[in-house]
């Protein structure tokens, strides 16, 4: 029985580690500036995880194999432990675990401790149940005022843009986010109803959109293309369908798009969405 259990534990260990090792199912190729640092931190962590996991399981299996009751006449070892060992493994694990936590902070700090760099492209994101609205500032680069009382679904004014505001004149709202490649992007995240979450796997980026709050976050996407955008916080019945796209466009294409008047903006977006294809390999 002991040997069978040991073998099963080892087989499960090999299988589990193997699943991570072959990387058949892994992160999609990253496109954001912070992603390489994040991916390497992930890799480092998963190696520590894998080694600790393997060591513990191999050790467990070995104990189970070696110290099974084989009808020996002598008794088990009589010991109540070793303070020296306790101190050693407490310190070793503390150093490794807390060290990992501290190392992980640099990516976090670069994303969250600082304001977006000057010159960042600004988009306001207004989520609502099962639909994304991206509010573009237009040529003047200033987002028009919005107010919830002005929301009018029949007029397609989903986010309540105040038409009286001069800076709102050239604003555009679309369900797809188009951002420039290689330039910092600052999102202002809001929600009209419940909590949603802005999640693009290739960005390695996620942030809740909380009603009553305007959360500002920033990142830089480097690789042009079309990517799927998902809601990753349970928001109700059709949560699983709250999907849209993120278009990362070369700078000139993006600048041209943002300069377009509203009606042409919509057409051009449709063209761009058809032009770019989703990544085929993940």
């Amino acid at each position, binding site marked *: 029985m002991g040997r069978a259990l040991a073998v099963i534990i080892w087989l499960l260990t090999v299988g589990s580690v193997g699943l991570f090792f072959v990387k058949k199912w892994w*992160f999609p190729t990253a496109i954001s500036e912070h992603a390489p640092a994040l991916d390497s*931190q992930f890799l480092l962590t998963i190696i520590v995880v894998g080694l600790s996991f393997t060591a513990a399981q191999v050790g*467990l299996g070995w104990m189970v194999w070696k110290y099974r009751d084989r009808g020996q006449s002598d*008794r088990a070892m009589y010991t109540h432990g070793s303070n020296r060992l306790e101190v050693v493994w407490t310190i070793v694990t503390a150093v490794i675990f807390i060290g990992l936590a501290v190392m992980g902070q640099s990516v976090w700090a670069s994303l969250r401790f600082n304001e977006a760099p000057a010159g960042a492209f600004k988009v306001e994101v207004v989520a609502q149940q099962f639909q994304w609205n991206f509010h573009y500032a237009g040529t003047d680069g200033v987002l028009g005022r919005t107010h919830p009382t002005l929301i009018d679904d029949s007029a397609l004014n989903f986010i309540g843009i105040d038409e009286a505001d001069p800076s709102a004149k050239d604003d555009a709202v679309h369900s797809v986010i188009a951002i420039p490649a290689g330039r910092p992007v600052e999102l202002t995240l809001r929600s009209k109803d419940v909590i949603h979450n802005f999640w693009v796997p290739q960005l390695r980026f996620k942030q809740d959109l909380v009603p009553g709050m305007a959360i500002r976050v920033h990142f830089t996407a480097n690789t042009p293309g079309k990517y799927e955008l998902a809601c990753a916080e349970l928001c109700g019945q059709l949560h699983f369908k709250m999907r849209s796209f993120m278009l990362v466009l070369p700078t000139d294409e993006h600048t041209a798009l943002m300069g377009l008047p509203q009606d042409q903006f919509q057409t051009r977006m449709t063209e761009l969405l058809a032009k770019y294809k989703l990544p085929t390999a993940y």
Partner: protein
Amino acid sequence: MSGETHETHGAVHRHEPPTSFIRKYIFSLDHKVIGIQYIILALVAVLVGMTMSVLMRMNLSWPGTNWPILGTLFPGGAPDGMMTPEFYLSLVTMHGTIMVFFVLTTAPQGGFGNYFLPIQIGAEDMAFPVLNMLSFWVTFVGFVVILAAIFFSGAESTVGPIGGWTGYAPLSALPNSGPGQGMGMNLWIISIAIFCVGSLLGALNFITTLLNMRAPGMSLMRMPLTCWAWFTTAVLALLSFPVLLGGGVLLLLDRTAGTSFFIPGGLYIGGELSGASANFPIHTGGSPILWQHLFWFFGHPEVYIAILPGMGATSHILSTFARKPVFGYRAMVFAIFAIGLLGFFVWGHHMFISGMSPYSAMTFSILTLSIGVPSAVKTFNWLGTLWGARIRFTTPMLFAIGFVSLFVAGGITGLVLGQSSLDLPMHDTYFVTAHFHLVMGVASIFGMFAATYFWFPKMFGRMMSERLGRIHFWITFVGVYCIFVPMHTMGIVGMPRRFAQFTEYEFLATLHPLVVFVSIAAIATVFAQILFYFNLVWSIFKGEKSGANPWEATTLEWITPSPPPHDNFAGVIPTVYRGPYEFAVPGAPNDFIMQTEPEPGTVPATEGAGNGHNGHRH
């Protein structure tokens, strides 16, 4: 710890047990009957929860398939045999709620804790038997209310509210935010509030009993590790459930009285602005994140409430069948306390991307990874206990070893999730689902399986079938690895939790074979549990007679007959002379020495440091 005393030996005289059926089995004051009642409650609840998980897996793996049986059973939720998304999401909510509250909190603590804590410390009952009875029946009412939410969810197509077990506001706070947010959500909140009250009464009893009713000689450092685990769990419950209760009251007021604790102003839902009509009153000034703080301040300790008793049982059982004292008893006690204490300061790691301050996220991240230290210490000590052992592979031992394996497998990925930066891609993906199911769900349940197989002879006077138990172990052990390890890789790809279908996203298509594999493994594992239920029922009537101490164990529950008499020790309060795990003592006649054995050989005349005496003042 306490200066409370119990100076006297018990004299030989007995309580007469009650004779009427109702006082004996229904409204019993006997902690053993109440413990079994809790276990039965958990056994029923886990059936409901498992059935729901099977339904969920069916929906995820074979989208668009027509299941005629579903259409018949749930004409509203699965018209034409195909599940609606809201039906799926209500299953998610109810599965989580029932499993966390009515299985993982009731069985380890209310069930086994109630039954064995008094016996293991040599008490004849809990400190407040009436309160104990009340805490069970309050919990039972909570369970009835959550079941009522299945039938009166307020929408034809759901079997409960939609919110996950976390019930994030304002989705949960606004009755008009979708199907399933009606009466079902009210019942959900009320059920949890009732459950909080029941747990608090239980915790009160546990703490008082342990501090005040230990038998003579049972110093704190002579208690079995199970008692330490139950005690710490009770303290966690005592300090965390009131916070959830408070939060629940606020949420219910938001839903029914029009207050705005969790609802900010200016919301616009379903074509209607807040305040525009009577069924969407005007709200202002609330904070959705406040709910998350209150919930997770409870929610994180709750994870430890679920698993600490399993850790205690595992230490206890490993030592018994390794025929060796627990390695590092004192370190184990400190680790339990460290886990419990740190558990109160890490709730923020559930909220890294919620919009809270990035600086507090950093603090929470570092505190979270430091919780890995006492967890690792426990693992090392378990391995140390097995080192140089003479392991007897009984079914409880298999499950205890399985617990260690699964605790490592599930816990270690906390190193990933505890880092705020890595939470950016991982948050709310199946990586999280895999992590907490393995560690809080499956590992805890393995602890309870071990406890069941171990203590069943004491509870019913008969052994469970070893053969069935072993088959049950092998299938379940391999099964849970097959279910939950692949879920990690799904999470790495980016598969979000709480999706009713994965068909909408192209980047998830590649995962379909894994999803199906997991579902098949899950369904097989669930069906293997029939063996366990059968074994339980069969063994109560047909199991081999066990005698008082079938496992040759050392603690107080094994000195009394199986099942124990009404007042546990037939009127004699036992006297304790030594630590709980005296196995393989050199020179002793047997390889185990009961805690009550006063013979020479192990009672030290001098008090060496660390010997565990005087942890308690007499």
